[in-house]
């Protein structure tokens, strides 16, 4: 039985539907992420799990028990709030002891468990400081420690790293993964940062306009998005309008208007005549002045360089195809001393394996 099961939950505010028929389940010990653009209903869903909002319809089951009507203070679910929400009049240790006190844990046990969790988040020497005497990253760790100390069945994290700068965020991501492994508590993690979601999660539910657009492991979400929205939202992706012109032999032929024919893996449900999108990651495209045919890169197009962006480890080349479509590609700068292989307006050739692109109908 799944630890958490959300069944067909709907939540509306007035005539606005914030969460629309969401169903999903989370296994015990999982690091599960809700990913989606701003306003797609992530926080609303989380608040329903915590008990601050009630679903209009549908059920939320925790350990098989329907939690409808159970107030937040009675749910074995703790939240790490985006704003940290540390109690400013309490020291770090007092903040962390708070949930234990509420649960009427004995004074001696409180001391032991606070010390233990302070050690887990490496804040032992800050125990007697007040929140305003801490850095952003330290505050974040206090908030996580406070939510973890009473060992909730489920830990909810609402964009916990969004207030930190990029470098600190990366460090905290690694800490979070380790912490989650160590304590073995199930995490439901909310973010609108796709990189963070891919790096941290066991599974990701991509949300759009209150609905789950795709739910899968990060690798699948990245390589086989099920819709134009998911492909576009996760990472960099080329989106080429395409029409199915033939299916045979485990391959699908796609007409890319004004450019030519591309091949791709067949997709269930696609038939000849269907219009859709060929999604193609920049790093899966080969780029060269001339590319020999038949080295396994079955799809072959010509174009000219439109823009170059030097990023340090890689250089991005935007290539303009014959019909004016812009395709993003990249070349790593690792092996050679050169950082630039082409200049604007150079004639180049593009090629990719037939299974590198992924066709989506929607």
């Amino acid at each position, binding site marked *: 039985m799944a630890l958490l099961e959300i069944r067909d939950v709907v939540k509306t505010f007035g005539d606005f539907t914030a969460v629309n028929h969401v169903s999903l389940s989370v296994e015990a010990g999982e690091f599960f992420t809700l990913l989606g653009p701003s306003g797609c209903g992530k926080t609303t869903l989380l608040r329903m799990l*915590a008990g*601050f909002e009630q679903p209009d319809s549908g059920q939320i089951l925790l350990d098989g028990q329907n939690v409808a009507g159970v*107030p*937040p*203070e*009675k749910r074995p*679910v*703790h*939240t790490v*709030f985006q*704003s940290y*929400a*540390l*109690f*400013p*009049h309490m*020291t770090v*240790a*007092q903040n962390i*002891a*708070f*949930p234990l006190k*509420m*649960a009427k844990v004995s*004074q001696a046990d*409180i*001391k032991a468990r*606070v010390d233990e969790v302070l050690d887990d988040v490496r804040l032992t020497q800050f125990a*007697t400081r007040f929140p305003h005497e801490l850095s952003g990253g330290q505050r974040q760790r206090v908030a996580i420690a*406070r*939510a973890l100390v*009473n060992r909730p069945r489920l830990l909810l994290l609402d964009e916990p790293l969004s207030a930190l700068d990029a470098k600190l965020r990366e460090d905290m991501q690694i800490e979070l993964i380790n912490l989650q492994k160590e304590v073995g508590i199930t995490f439901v993690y909310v973010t609108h940062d796709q990189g963070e979601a891919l790096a941290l999660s066991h599974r990701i539910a991509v949300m759009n306009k209150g609905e789950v657009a795709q739910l899968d492991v990060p690798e699948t979400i990245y390589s086989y998005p099920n819709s134009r929205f998911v492909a576009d939202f996760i990472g960099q992706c080329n989106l080429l309008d395409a029409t199915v012109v033939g299916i045979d032999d485990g391959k699908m032929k796609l007409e890319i208007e004004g450019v030519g024919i591309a091949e791709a893996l067949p997709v269930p449900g696609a038939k000849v005549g269907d219009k859709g999108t060929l999604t193609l990651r920049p790093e899966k495209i080969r780029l060269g002045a001339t590319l020999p045919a038949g080295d396994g890169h079955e799809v072959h197009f010509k174009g000219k360089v439109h823009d170059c962006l030097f990023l340090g480890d890689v250089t991005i080349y935007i290539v303009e195809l014959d019909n004016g479509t812009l395709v993003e590609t990249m070349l790593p700068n690792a092996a050679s001393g050169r950082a630039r292989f082409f200049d604007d307006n150079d004639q180049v050739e593009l090629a990719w394996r037939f299974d590198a692109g992924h066709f989506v109908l929607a």
Partner: protein
Amino acid sequence: MRNNRLAKWLISGPPLLYLLLFFAIPSAIMAFAAFRFPGDYGGLLPLMNVNPDTGKTELLINAGNYADFLTLENFTRFFQEPVFFELFLKSFWYAGLTTVICLALAYPLAWLIARSPKKHRDLLVLMVILPFWSNFLIRVYSWMIILGPQGYFAKSINAVLGVIGIGPVQLLFSHFAVILVLVYVHLPFMVLPLYANLEKHDMNLLDAAQDLGANAWQRFWRITWPLSLPGVWAGAALVFIPALGMFAVPDLVGGTDGIMIGNLIKQQFLDSRDWPFGSVLSIMLTLAVLMLAGLATLIGRGGKRNAL
């Protein structure tokens, strides 16, 4: 650099001058007066005089002989007659009770205003300070009419009491009347700082507390109340100190039994014209308030960094 310092003096100069002229110097005069002898016809025993015959100003005392013009007699009197100490105690009791009642009434009110929709808050605050639009004395006189034996309020209370066999009570000119009117007069001074504090509270903290297992009472007692203490202290000071020195209210609604230390001080200066003793009373009152404030600060500081 120099301009900066000049600007500082120019900005702080006028208020400093004002405080010097109308607070520091008068306080010093009063402190000095507390050690002098009362004059034969009130005021202070003069230190110098204009000789009517010669028209020259003469010193009436031997400046080297302090005992001629300085005395501890006024202080001795204060400490020897228990009636003054009792009046002090009573005034502190009245002011303390007023503060506690104001707090009990103002806290829920301030909380409700702070939690009401933003667009209504200003209007609600305006209603709290509305009484200030009429004169203070008029408001106290209104209470005299309400509480007076001919008023409907007193009549209906006595009618009810009559039914259960308790004789008619006098509402006006009683301890009850003093406390009631003191509370009425000072209530806004408690509401405003409390509201200013409560309005700033971060609602996320209450959500966090609830999420971590705190019920409604625990959320109030562990989060809202401790965070509102600065407002509570500010309100308490704004109510307690003026209430302690109040003389108009006990004068008008307190009768003979209801007087407070403020009435005695006023009496010394205006009726008995014993300025030295009036000064002693004022100084003792100020010292008592300062000691109380110091004590409160110490207690507040001590409680802050306690263990888990």
